[in-house]
């Protein structure tokens, strides 16, 4: 195997691994132009990565459509402890966060 062929295979394997790890970035438009071109160039000749792009895009459509569709109502007693002044609660180290931290 010539050095050129070997390097080509190595680069392809490297591109494949890199592309698989960046499918979510790509679907979000969260890649630089250069990185996006690298992934697209690889995916043109890679069945797995082409399918991966379609799957990731589908996932981003499905998550809000499936997980976000249920209407959830807060329980009626959500302010009960506020009204009772937190009687009986132990101070276990929690608390409201400072802003900007």
């Amino acid at each position, binding site marked *: 195997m010539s050095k050129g062929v070997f390097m080509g295979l190595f680069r392809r394997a490297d591109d494949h691994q890199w592309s698989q*790890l*960046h*499918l*979510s*970035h790509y679907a*979000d438009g*969260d890649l630089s132009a250069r990185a996006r071109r690298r992934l697209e160039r690889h995916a043109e000749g890679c069945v797995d990565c082409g*399918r*991966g792009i*379609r*799957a*990731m*895009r*589908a*996932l*981003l*459509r*499905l*998550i*809000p459509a*499936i*997980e*976000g569709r*249920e*209407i*959830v*109502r*807060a*329980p009626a*007693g*959500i*302010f*009960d*402890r*506020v*009204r009772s002044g*937190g009687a009986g*609660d132990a101070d*276990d180290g*929690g*608390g*409201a*966060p*400072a*802003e*900007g*931290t």
Partner: protein
Amino acid sequence: MSQAAGPGGAGVLETEAALVARARAGDVDAFEQLAGAHADRLFALLVRLLGDRAEAEDVAQEVMLRAWRGISGFHGHSLFFTWLYRIAVNEANRSLDKSARRPAYTSIEAAAVQLPAAAREEPARRLEQTELREALSRALVRLPPDYRIAVVLHDVEGLSAPQAAEVAGCGEAAFKSRLHQARLRIRAAIGDDALINAGS
């Protein structure tokens, strides 16, 4: 104050500021009105993070109590809902810690193992919407808590990356890293064919 609108919407900001001022002065009715506007979505967030409605009810009460006790420390530098959500995320994490119920998130492949048999064998044709919903829920609950929080805040709740990072208590770059890793794990758990078929 941040420009982005949260669940309450940009149009309520002035009213919200007035309610914050009254709540900071000790007006519990104002606090209920202020926090009550976000109660449904906050409760939904807790149900998704904890995966248990009864536990979410308990934690939601605790969140409101801590917010009430801490309202004097809220100065409006961030949106009220991001501050409230941050308390909710902290309390959800504390609850998961206390109950030692952190899922076996190191083996996300287990979610795939528990997919319906039909889904594994013929995902493109057999995975129904209900099964997909169950598979997605299982995959979510098996994520490391930080990853699950990222997906729920950004992809389900629709918060922007900066808002979600603020709620999660981390930087935006770290938040995005968690989000992308989480999605890759969910994709691996459900499978490309099932996702493409369901999403087409």
